[in-house]
């Protein structure tokens, strides 16, 4: 009996040390449909992005400061949702969405274009004057993005990885309020990132739900928590279109309250690729 218990202890230990990451049991063909559905989601959002950008840039060209300010955040939302794909095009990601700190000379850099250049004009300098060329350039870039994404065969690993990437981005660079430092419309971007991440999770969830229900529960719980915190700051509780209050009004406690669930989401969702064998 004793040698047997020794053997048992030793083999249990052996098994422990042999523990490898869970092998993916997902049939690769099962990924085809969610990847396709995701592209359709991205294309729908891109259509919206193009038409909203048209209105936004037309307001700038018409010198309508107030309207341009109002349209800034609701236009960006569509970009924020589809960022995992949009940022695959390095040149356009830079010209559409780069921040001033991406350039050595900040706002003085002639290459600094896109939303945040316009944000600087509309919200810091409070003018549309001199910003028409940037508006025109943005429209060209957004149209260019639309046609490139249409022709793109989506890389499955990047699609699935996008769920985590979006949440990482929120945790690392958005909670601080640096993204929309002049307009303070950060919560709109948050919501866009959360929407985009959640969409990817929902599409692939059926493939992991059976094998790892605890994972699915945890992710859903954390998404719900983030959504709850966001809901406190909606301008109108029942109307998502009305958007959010200024990020300046978000308490330090709530800013910190985002970090917890968002970080856990980023970590959990980062395992999705492995779970799906990508």
């Amino acid at each position, binding site marked *: 009996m004793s040698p047997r218990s020794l053997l048992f202890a030793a083999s249990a230990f052996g098994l422990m040390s042999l523990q490898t990451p869970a092998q993916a049991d997902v049939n690769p063909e099962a990924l085809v449909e969610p990847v396709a559905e995701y592209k359709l989601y991205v294309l729908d959002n891109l259509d919206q992005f193009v038409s909203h950008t048209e209105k936004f840039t037309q307001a700038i060209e018409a010198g309508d400061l107030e309207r341009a300010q109002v349209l800034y955040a609701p236009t960006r939302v569509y970009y924020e949702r589809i960022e995992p794909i949009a940022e695959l095009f390095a040149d356009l990601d830079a010209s559409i969405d780069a921040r001033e700190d991406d350039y050595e000379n900040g706002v003085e850099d002639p290459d600094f274009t896109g939303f945040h250049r316009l944000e600087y004009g509309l919200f810091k300098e409070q003018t549309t004057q001199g910003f028409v060329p940037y508006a025109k350039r943005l429209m060209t870039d957004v149209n260019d993005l639309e046609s490139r994404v249409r022709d793109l*065969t989506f890389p*499955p690993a990047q699609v699935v990885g996008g769920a985590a990437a979006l949440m990482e981005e929120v945790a690392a660079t958005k909670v601080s309020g640096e993204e929309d430092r002049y307009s303070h419309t950060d919560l709109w971007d948050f919501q866009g990132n959360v929407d985009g991440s959640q969409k990817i999770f929902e599409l692939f969830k059926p493939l992991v739900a059976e094998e790892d229900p605890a994972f699915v529960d945890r992710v859903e719980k954390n998404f719900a928590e983030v959504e709850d915190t966001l809901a406190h700051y909606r301008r109108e509780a029942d109307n998502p279109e009305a958007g959010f209050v200024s990020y300046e009004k978000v308490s330090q406690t709530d800013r910190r309250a985002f970090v917890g669930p968002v970080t856990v989401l980023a970590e959990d969702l980062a395992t999705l690729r492995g779970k799906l064998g990508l």
Partner: protein
Amino acid sequence: MPPSSPPSARLLKIGVLASAVLMLAALGLFALSLNGRNHDDGDVRLVVTAQGCEPRELSVPAGETRFSIVNDSQRAIEWEILDGVMVLEERENIAPDLHQPLTATLAAGDYAMTCGLLSNPHGTLHVTANDAAPSIALSRQDFIAPLAEYKVYLTLQTRRLVEAAEALHQSIAAGELDAARTAYCEARLIDQRLAMATGLYSDLDERLNARADYFAEREQDPQFVGFHRLARGLFDAGSTGGLTPIAAQLLEDARTLGERLRHQSIPPAQLANGSARVLKAWHAHAIDSKTLNAQELLDLQGLTAGAEKIVTLLAPLLERQAPDALEGLQAQLARLQQDLPEQSNTVSGAKGSSDIDRDALLADTQALADTLDSLDRTLALNG
């Protein structure tokens, strides 16, 4: 239950001791592996400073490489490997003074690296051909992307087909012959792009695409409906008379096709094989007719566009497995496209068979179909 004798204390002690030793050994190994990970000589180290990448140029062999990116600047950075403007791999949010690993599998060629600030110059990454690395056979994972893209294509094209079929139905119901002819061409072009996928459903394929020859009473057969029946009326008889129920049926069938394709899974081997099949079917019919009329040319145009999509989808896989085969395939496709009249001409029916080199068209269709047919072997696909 038989009573078990109590384990001897001495043996138990040995057991505990032995597991402790094993545990220590395992911990030691674990510590070693951690250590190795930080200073692993296999990692390709790259430092990003406030000014850019150090070194500015890197050279690695093709295949899998583990990079270790060190942020030696004052702000959080991202590091990307670019192929042209496309991001192949990226590591975001590397905090100052930290380093992060990134594992990338790269094919031979020259790539760019982003190096911190957008205003910093890009670095260069040379990936050299690596004969030692075994060529990796395609896996089922490799077909996820092309199959998903094909599904998107089918979804978008069937949406357009339904819209075009609506316009066709409306103009026929209104008795507008010219508008109906234009709408027919628009719808038929899309229908033929989808021919391979529609072929998965014999009922729909028959109702949409079957020719009169396949019916007992040919043109007079009540079962003879769909595009060929409409073409008979619109182009041969020059009338919309009696076509309204046929156009209504066609619209309904287009909708059904869209719904079915939405959840249809298509086996990888079908992509090339199915495109070859529909081109051959066209060829078999065309070779029997002395002249090619505008409708037959329109059909081939649609089929060729469908084949072009397949070639685009398989190109990255062929490039890896058989670059020569890819080159041949693309050349054959281009030749066939050149033989075909401009789309606008065909739609208006202006450019007829007289301007077309029938023999070249037939030969090039056959050649493309044959090559497509051989692709599954090239890609080592079956089923």
